[in-house]
């Protein structure tokens, strides 16, 4: 079948486009493009004080762009008929994406290479690679990046727990539906609520129930207790005191504080991975397990040879999405530790938040965000490539 025949299959009406229509289409698109260019030029000259029109906003350019986009769409129909109508299914969406993603990204790049402190009377000034040089020697940024490596590595542990829970919920246990909902609850909570309820309340040093419980464990048992209870109590108290639970501190030292942040974030997002893996588990045909049972495979062998390999695509998707979530970790840190003690819990996002919000350092903050975006894009691309290789069937 030729291409023309193929096209005819999808064309409802035969196009008979007159030259006038084609000319009108071209006129519309070039005319509106001219208006857009002219408006942009005028605005640029006005902004740079070459002209003194006094335009307060860039709205004229926006309106000119909308007009051009409308004319471009209309010209497609005028010049290409039915084919043009087909293009209209995609073109407005493409223009919208360009407007809302590509333009802001380009504008973001301009800001990233600018010295722009909102408090500076000079406004934004281009400063070349200065922000990059500043980033290169900024111990706070590198410290935050280092922390992100730790935070991301913990995903391996989170994945293991999520897989275990998913297998548990996939088996025929009593109250399965209840547990499925119950285990999902942390995911429904806002991380801000988690940070207040757990970090600021339950782990509160003096009144928090967890702190009180640990202190109780570390306290010496009453001598009135029978020896059967007293001596184990003493042993537990000694052990608890050895752990430092007589005066528990959850965010006082770097290691423990980081671990607590990891734990809270994990508690919130493990259900997300769990539910994805659970969905994958439910899609594995029963026949495979039945066949392996006939062949005498143990449960562990079934897991290694059937469950895990078949779950690999789902697992990798879950882990990749989890990594993306993890790289945005900020809210719990901002609420509980503000990055402390001494930057031990700082994430890149929480650092950028301080740089941007508290210090109005828009240029440098934007550069940090863009560099982080580039790092994420590269890392995720590499991971996806590697994942593709892993997921190729072994047999």
């Amino acid at each position: 079948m030729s291409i023309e025949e193929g096209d005819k299959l999808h064309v409802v009406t035969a196009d008979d486009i007159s030259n006038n229509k084609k000319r009108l289409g071209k006129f519309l698109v070039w005319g509106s493009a001219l208006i857009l260019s002219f408006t942009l030029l005028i605005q640029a000259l006005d902004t740079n004080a070459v002209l003194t029109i006094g335009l307060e906003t860039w709205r004229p350019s926006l309106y000119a762009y909308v007009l051009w986009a409308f004319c471009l769409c209309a010209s497609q129909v005028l010049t290409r008929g039915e084919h043009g109508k087909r293009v209209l299914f995609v073109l407005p969406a493409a223009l919208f994406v360009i407007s809302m993603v590509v333009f802001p990204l380009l504008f973001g790049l301009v800001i990233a290479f600018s010295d722009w402190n909102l408090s500076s009377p000079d406004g934004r000034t281009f400063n070349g690679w200065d922000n990059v040089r500043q980033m290169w020697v900024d111990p706070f940024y590198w410290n935050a990046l280092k922390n992100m490596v730790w935070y991301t590595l913990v995903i391996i542990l989170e994945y293991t727990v999520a897989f275990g829970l998913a297998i548990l919920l996939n088996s025929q246990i009593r109250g399965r539906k209840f547990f499925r909902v119950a285990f999902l609850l942390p995911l429904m909570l806002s991380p801000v609520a988690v940070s207040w309820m757990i970090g600021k309340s339950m782990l509160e040093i003096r009144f928090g129930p967890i702190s009180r419980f640990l202190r109780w464990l570390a306290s010496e048992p009453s001598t009135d207790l029978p020896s059967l209870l007293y001596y184990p109590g003493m042993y537990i108290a000694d052990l608890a005191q050895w752990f430092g639970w007589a005066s528990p501190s959850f965010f006082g030292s770097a290691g423990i504080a980081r671990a607590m942040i990891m734990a809270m974030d994990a508690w919130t997002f493990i259900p997300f991975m769990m539910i994805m893996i659970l969905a994958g588990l439910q899609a594995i045909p029963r026949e495979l397990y039945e066949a392996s049972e006939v062949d005498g495979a143990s449960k562990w062998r079934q897991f290694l040879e059937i469950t895990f390999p078949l779950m690999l695509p789902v697992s990798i998707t879950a882990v990749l999405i989890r990594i993306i979530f993890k790289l945005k970790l900020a809210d719990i840190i901002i609420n509980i530790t503000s990055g402390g003690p001494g930057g031990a819990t700082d994430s890149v996002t929480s650092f950028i938040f301080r740089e941007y919000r508290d210090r109005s350092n828009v240029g440098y903050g934007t550069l940090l965000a863009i560099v982080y975006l580039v790092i994420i894009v590269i890392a995720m691309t590499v991971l996806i490539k590697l994942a593709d290789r892993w997921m190729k069937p072994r047999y």
Partner: protein
Amino acid sequence: MKIDLYNAIVSAQMSRRKMLKGSASLGAVAAMGGLGGAASAGAHGGVRAEIMKIPGVGMGSPGDPEWQKVGELCMGPVKERVAEGEFKGVELTFMGLNNQNLHNFLFRGFLKPWEAYTGAKINWIDLAQADYNPRLQQSIATKTVDFDIIEMGAPFEGDTAGQGLLNEMPGWVKDQIEYDDLVGYLQPPVGTWDGKAYRINIDGDCHTFCYRKDYFGTGSITGRMNPPNTWQEVNQISKDVVGKTDPLTGLPAHGFLDPLKGWGGFGMYFLTDRAGPYVKHPDDPAFLFDIDTMKPRINNPGWVQAIQDVMDLIKIEGAYPADQINADPGTTGFQQFLAGTGSMLTWWGDIGSNARTSDTSVIGDVVGFSAIPGSDRVYNHGKGAWENTYNEAPNNAYLGWGVYVTNRVEGDAKKRKAAWSAAAHIGGKDISLWTSAYPSGFQPYRNSHFNYDEWEAAGYDRAFVEDYLGSNLDTYNHPNSLNEPRIPGIFQYYSVAEDELAKGYAGQYGSAQETADAIAVAWEKITDQIGRESQIKLYKAALGL
């Protein structure tokens, strides 16, 4: 008045009998034509007594009807200067906060009678506290200031007045609001730039020293009869009580509660409380930067001593409660001090009010207040040497809220007069007495607010009001108080200092000096980025030099 404080007073004192007594006193006072003194002189006396009855102390929280009524009764000064319907057709935009459903909501009520009388219309931009700074900064940076009147804290004057965005206050407004009535620290240069006034004050702010009375006196665990007068004593007490038991809670006793974690820049005020008496020499108006160069003073021996004092306590196990490295000012104030942990603290007035009302407070009966302690010695930055003389430098942290008019009104005389008239109405002398006495979110800030007779006549417990207002008054009028530098980006300096201090407190720098040096380097960068020359100029202007 802050809501909590109002609740504290009414819950602590108001019986029906007292209420009637208060009302009777008020009535008698009104009949006599005033209470005497500047605060109630002339025709104002009647209005002041009248508004203090709306709705009456302990008669429930006032709302929009009460706000409108107060606004109506206080229209006298407006009517003296504006003819009825004079601003017909004028539209103004007012940007402010919506904290606790007060601020802008309160202003709406106060200004309704003003709108009805003048014919002007006000559009409102209500912002949450957290949104305020970004909204203001973005408006300035993108040149999209879309408000004519703004409720603003003095620290932002550098960003606004310093960049020529504000309109100068006309002389008649000064007369209308009785500008001279302001307490000492709110007098110029605060509220002025290059000698021009911009700010109508509606609030006062300062840090005071809160202490536990049961830690002092005969048989107390500190063995001292009186609370400390100096920071040296504060540190000694913090060391002395280690290992002892808190007399109220039976838990480990602690001394001063330093917030060791940042708080969006606000944590810096607490180190400044400690550093003030070391670094604010009475002969020198500056304490953060050198006036002529903007070279930071944060790493001079005075500031380093303050940081060292904190580090000394960090080293002593038990001097601070566990996990203090993770305690911000909210934690030290509300989760620690009010809950009976620790014996000394510096904070804004909220702690005093919450001490007697909050359900989680256990210290209501044992809390005392005073001005922030002084020091046995002060660092003379000019001479580069310590002087062994007692020095006090209480901290007027944040300076409180004010109302300003933007230069959008310039070129339109009618609109300008309308904007200033509206601002002057809500910052008027009589209306401010009411906002001081009833839940409004604002603290007293005029000398006339400290006429205790008026408060007593309105039904307040005199002892409590004197205790509460007294500690504020001592700070407000102190000749060597620390006032906000008000330069652009001041919270950027504070925020970056918090980051470096956190590293220092966590032991990542070798010493207090190294920590301070790191802050100084970061401050120099900020100054260079914002523009050193303009910062020097604005710093001088802020100091009134």
